[in-house]
């Protein structure tokens, strides 16, 4: 049995779908962030897999993923800082409750 491109893409797709679902349904900000990480991760997988299967001579996909990981880390750090700050102000991380800055 060959492990071909599609076989890696399918789990990645499902991971992405779960990320979308979680992002839409979750109310907890951290949970939303987790869903976001799922989506990012699935995209990373795609980059790598496409790179590896279709263009084995080049390394762009790999590098892209590398930078994406770095940026994801930065983003998560800032996001969590914001969440903690929000929690400090509102004693809550539920997005439905935090409407003070809306409108």
């Amino acid at each position, binding site marked *: 049995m060959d492990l071909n491109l599609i076989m890696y893409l399918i789990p990645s797709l499902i991971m992405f779908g779960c990320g979308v679902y979680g992002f839409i*349904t979750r109310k907890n900000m951290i949970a939303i962030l987790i869903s976001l990480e799922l989506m990012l991760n699935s995209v990373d997988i795609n980059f790598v897999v496409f790179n590896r299967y279709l263009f084995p001579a080049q390394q762009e996909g790999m590098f892209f993923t590398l930078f994406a990981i770095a940026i994801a880390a930065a983003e998560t750090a800032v996001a969590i800082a914001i969440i903690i700050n929000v929690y400090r102000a509102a004693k809550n991380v539920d*997005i439905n409750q935090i409407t003070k800055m809306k409108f």
Partner: protein
Amino acid sequence: MPLSSTIYVLAIPLFMFLFLGLVGVKMPRKITGVIGVLGMAVTTVWAYAIAFTYFFGNGEGQMLDGVRQQVVATDWTWLSFYADKLVVKLGVLIDPISAMMLVVISTVSFMVHLYSLGYMSDHDGNPEKGFQRYYADLALFTFSMLGLVVSTNIFQMFIFFEMVGVSSYLLIGFYYGQQPANHASKKAFIVTRLADLFFLIGILILSFYTKTFDFKEIMGANGHDVCNAFTSAQGLTFMGCSVTAWALTFIFIGGAGKSAMYPLHIWLPDAMEGPTPVSALIHAATMVVAGVFLVARMFPLYVLEQGAMDIICVVGAFTAFYAAAVACTQSDIKRALAFSTISQIAFMMTSLAVSSANGKLLGGHEAGLGYMASMFHLFTHAMFKALLFLCAGAIIHAVHSNENSKMHGLHKFMPITSIAFLIGCLAIAGIPPFAGFFSKDEILVACYEKGIGWGLWMSMVAGMTAFYMFRIYYLIFFWKKHEVHGEHAPKDQPWTMTVPLIVLAIISCVAGFAPFGKLVTWDGAQLETHMNWPIAGASVGIALIGIGLATMMYWKENPLPDKLATMFKGLWTASYKRFYMDELYQFITHKIIFQSISKPIAWFDRTIIDGFFNLLGNVTNSASFGIRKMQSGNVQGYVSYYIIGAVLLAAVTGVVILCF
């Protein structure tokens, strides 16, 4: 006096209108009145001089082989619809009828101007409020009427038709503060406007085929040479009738509106709400004959179109009878006189129309007798009807009422007025040697020539005329002793009012001897007229019967009229109510035009059309409100819409790619 100076006959009243209307308002009332009268006096003298020059002078081109020629004295291009053809000119056309009309209009107008000095003032002889406006409007009317009769083309005639309509509107509504005058003026204008609409359509049709408005170009000099375009258009038919018949009938309707032919007569009795001198000038002597004048002016064309002529004949004969029947029962003296006017104008119309049969003039060597008679009657009628109205004005001024129940037995108090009124009555009844006898006799002769039925019918109406005129006369001046109300007993009026009465009475006595046949004929050739003694005798006999009947019923107070009224109650009421024509019009205007057309249209506009556009607006609005909810600030919502949208877009693209 050169004929080209006729323009000043028009210019003076126009100037008087502008002067009195703009400057006169600031001047003392009495002075404006005097200026108005003087202006009119000059106009009158000038008009007489023009008429004299035309009839008796021998200027260039006036007489040719014993035929009096039409003279175009002035012609100024006012409006050119097409550069070379269809040009509206304002000009002066002098021919027998317009010269005669100049005399009629200026005489009556001058008399009315003079008379109004006295009439339009209160008890102490001070002029009323609006005196300047009154004289300005009179001058405007005189100008318009003069302009009408000297028109060189049919469009100029239409223009002045409108102008007389407006000045009549202004004068009827002189007492605009009073509701009846207000309504009457509106009614007069709208009814005549409706008629003018038909006139306009007639002009449009006629000019479409002949490509000109000019009388001379359409009918040739003196009406002998009708242009080919007209005769060839007679062959074209529209809905079964020739287009020229349509055109001429429409033009006649225009004239019928001004001349108060049935069923467009309804404005005239109401127009009596205006000051009485105005009624004398406009609604008895001049404006109401504009329709007759119009038909007379286009007589050569009508002769060629027998269908239109027959319509005029029937309408005229019926109106004469109808109005006479109504006049027999009216209690308001001005209204009675108004119906008498309608009846007499119908005489003139009929007389014009009976002149021809099968496209040819009747009467052998007296061809065109009806035309001559009609113009003759127009002339005499203007004089004696103006006289009657001015007398009525004097009476009304004395007793402050139009109702004859308030009068009775005035003969002792106002002898001059009474005699003048009697002369007018005799003249209209057709008793020799007063003016009406001669003209009415010619008309009856013309009618008998057309057919014995027409003659008998018109003779009967002539008898009715004598009856109702003397009924009015007796009810005003005799019947019973006058009951004096208040301090003032009625008396003859000041000289400004009696002089016109006397002058007009004298004219009414002698005008019948004028050699009309030599002066005014349809083609300018002289016409030898002979007294037709059998017919003349018979008509005098009928008139005497009418007078006798009136004397029997109304000379002294007696129960006979009441008894007759109860005996023929339905007929009497119908006649008193003018055979319900006003109610019919009321129904048409209010119930049909306002309630059934205008209201639904206005509703349709507000509800359906406006509603549609409001609906568009509301739909957009509510759609926006619906969409606004999606813009909630909820990122999760945005993501889901984004994803769904992206998926849909991808799906659509995929389907499109797969399909093509």
